[in-house]
Structure formats: C-alpha cells, structure tokens
C-alpha cells in the first residue's frame, strides 16, 4: 500500500489541480477588478445627499450582503435562467455574482473611508475652487485609499476563499478537481483526502498570503508617509 501522497503526482493530477486553481484565481481576479471599480463608483454615489439614490444603493448593498453567496449562485445559475431565459455559462455566472457581491461590499468600505476624511480637507478643496468630481479625485480619494486598504484586502482574500463554493454550480475549480481525484482513488488510497486537501490548503495559502503581505507593506508605507 503506497501512501496517498503518490496520487497527487500520478498522471496529470498535479497539473489538473493547478488548472483548477487557475480557474479559481481567474474568477477572483476578474470579479475583483470589476467589483472594486463598481464599488468605488457606488461608494462615492452613496455620499451624495440624494434620498432616492441612497435608498436604492442601500438596498443593493443589503441584498448582496445579507443573502448568502451560495444562495446568490443558485439564484443566478439555476433560477434566473428558468424564469428569464438568460443562460450564462457557469464561470460567467460566478464572475457576475462575485463582481456584484464585491461591488456591494466595496461600496460600503469606500463610503466609510470617504466620510472619515476630515471635513476641513473638503472645505479647503472647495476654497481653492475644485468642483465635485475634482474634489473626489484629488482630495477625497487619495486620502481615503489608505483607509480602504485593510478592509479591501480582507475582502480579496474572502473572495478567493469563497471560490470553493463554485463547485455547486459545476465550475471545475480546484476543490472540484480535488474531489474527483479523491473519489477516483478511494479504493486504492483511502487516505488520499488528507493529501489532496493538504495540497489545496497550501495552494490557497500561496494565493492569499502574498495579498496579506502586500497589505502589511502598504500599511507600513502609509505610516511612514504620515
């Protein structure tokens, strides 16, 4: 009886797992880029004093924050196509749901950061004749970014880890491939699960750790600048 570690390197297994990891990473990256851009826009709009706009954006935020990601994925993958006849493939659904979710969470992070910029900074900007968008671009955003970074990077790692739910909508992500390998070898290597999940743990760590290291680096830079 060989140790279950051998199944990691049998045939194409290792490159299949890496392929699955790439799917997870690709979905995370695309949804983060779109979601963060959307979140910055919506976050800025949420500081505008327009009651109707506020209610709409607040509803959007609450909907995506309260409804569990699993439910959202099912809703967009199985239920919406049935009722509206839109049929997206699984990866596109994953990117869409994650981007909308990131957009919602990000809008709250951005709003929080923007309103924490001291009021007198704004007033000073107005005094030198900046208009609304200029004020946002040159005064508020640069100062708010430092405040957003820790929460944003936390959000990024959450998105990466949440890709593990995607197997529920038939995305061939790293967890899904891992389960295929475990079950294909259940008879000959009953301890395969330990090694496969061990490797997946390391792979997720390799994706997420650089992000937290980067976050720490940026925060230190901020401290030095201050």
């Amino acid at each position, binding site marked *: 009886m060989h140790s279950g570690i051998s*199944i990691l390197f*049998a*045939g*194409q*297994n290792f490159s*299949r797992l890496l392929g699955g990891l790439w799917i997870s990473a690709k979905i995370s990256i695309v949804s983060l880029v779109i979601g963060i851009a959307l979140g910055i826009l919506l976050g800025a709009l949420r500081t505008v004093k327009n009651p109707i706009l506020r209610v709409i954006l*607040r*509803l959007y935020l*609450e*909907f995506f924050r*309260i*409804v569990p990601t699993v439910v959202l994925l*099912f*809703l967009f*993958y*199985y*239920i*919406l*196509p*049935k*009722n*509206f*006849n839109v*049929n997206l493939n699984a990866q596109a659904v994953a990117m869409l749901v994650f981007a909308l979710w990131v957009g919602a969470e990000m809008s709250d992070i951005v709003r929080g950061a923007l309103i924490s910029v001291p009021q007198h900074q704004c007033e000073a900007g107005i005094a030198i004749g900046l208009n609304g968008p200029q004020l946002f671009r040159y005064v508020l955003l640069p100062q708010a970014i430092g405040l957003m970074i820790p929460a944003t990077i936390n959000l990024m790692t959450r998105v990466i880890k949440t890709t593990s739910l995607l*197997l*529920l*909508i*038939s995305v*061939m992500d790293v967890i*899904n491939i891992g*389960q*295929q*390998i*475990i*079950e*294909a070898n*259940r*008879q000959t290597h009953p301890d395969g699960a330990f090694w496969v999940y061990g490797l997946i743990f390391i792979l997720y760590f390799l994706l997420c750790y650089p992000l937290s290291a980067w976050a720490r680096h940026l925060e230190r830079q901020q401290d030095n600048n201050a």
Partner: protein
Amino acid sequence: MKKHTRLIAAFLAVVTLFGLFAGFAQPAQAAETTSVSAIKKRGTIKIAVFGDLPPYGWVDKNGKRQGYDIALAKQVGKDLGVKVKYVQVNADSRVDALNSNKVDLVLANFTVTPERKQVISFAKPYMKVSIGVISPKSKPITKVSQLKGKNLIVNKGTTAEQYFTKDSKGATLQKYDSKTQQFNALKNGRAAALADDNSYLYAWVKDNPKYTVGIKHLGPNQYIAPGIKKGNKSLLKWTNKEITKLNNNGFFDKNYTNNLKPYFGSDVTAKDIVIK
C-alpha cells in the same frame, strides 16, 4: 424607535426583491431549446454526469471522464451524431440542471422515484439496484428467513434501513451512522449480517473476500434511468428508442464488463445490474 422602523423597512424591501424573483416565476419555456432537432443543429449535447462516483461517473488521473454512465453518454453522442459536452453535477443539482436548460440529459446514476417523476421525465431505465445482504462466508445467510432472531446491521438513511424498519423479518436491527461504522461493526462480529444497496456491497465484498453477498436482491428493485426535462417529448422518445436498441445489441453487457466488473468482482454478473 425610528431606527427599528428603518431596519424593518429595509428587511421588507429585501423580502420584496425576493418576491419579485419568485413572482416572475412562470412555467419554464417549453423544451424547444433542448429538442432533438435543436441538439443536432447545435452539434453538441450537454449531458450532466457525476465526476466523483466510481465506477459510474468519475475522472481518471489523466483528466479523462470514465465510467458506466460516461460510456452510455459517449454512445448517445455517437448515435445522435453530435459532440458530447459534459456538465459535472452533484446529486442534488441534477433536477435543477435539467429545468434550467443547463443540460439536455442527465446520466448520473439517477434513481427513478415518484417525487422526481413529478418534476422531470425519466426515459427507460438502463440499470437496476436493490437491497442486498452480506454475511461471513463461513456462516452465509442466503434467505431472508435465516435472519430471524439474529442481529442485522443497517446504515441510517438508506433504503435498506427503510425496508427493514417497516418489516424487520424477525431480525434485531442495529443502526449505524456511516458506511465505515457499519462495516467495522460487521467485521467485529456484532451481527450476523448487514443490509445496504447491493451495488455498494458488491464492491465492498471484492475488497473483503471473507464475506459474501448472500442475498443479492431484496425488496422492490430501484431503477436507474436517463433524466430528461419534462415536456421534451422528442428527446424522451429518442432516448427510449436508443436504450431499447442498446439493450438489444448487447451494449450494456459490454459496458458492464468494461466499467463495473472490475469493481464488483466475480460474485456478480451482468444480469444482476443490467436490465433485460
């Protein structure tokens, strides 16, 4: 107080949003997009399969799909003259995958049940399973009457548990939570026999040659059949014809030999699984 009112308002709004989704729920469009002519025009058939259930649907170390269901899927694609696109599903998403047009056909060890029949259609079955009973080769139990006054092991939540709970045939039931526990209990001599789905037992006995599937079939047969979206008459008709044809030309016997026999060992023959 005001804060509470706002919270409640927000909650109601979210509920309303959900209601909107539900409100638009019309009976799904007729299955035009998955009819045989549509599939042929598209050039691919989307088939839901398992990726983690050897020997029915699994993936080998080179990333190739293998198994009894996969062999059938390949044959279906060949006979339709189209390419096969596999969509890997879990047990509980098989019905949804059909109803949301994610797949045209489900070939994923899909057991026919009255509940499922209400929401999807099943074509002709291509496999049967039922309850089996294993016992040590030294003291084999080959008839239900032999169970009288003996201890019998079952796994909670299985059809075997349901069957013997309704009528224990004079045996004393021992119920366990997992497959591992129940097989260990049998090995430790806590009972004279163990009852479970026969397809599991065949595979287990192969690895544990001191035991034998003394009773191969018990209770009503359960059938495994292709799942098709309700209302998709053309594909249902085509699949029924296909299963009949494959039955007659010995495809399933060959499929049994290639995919199931290596797992089930010599205790079992194609006749125990394949439907004639």
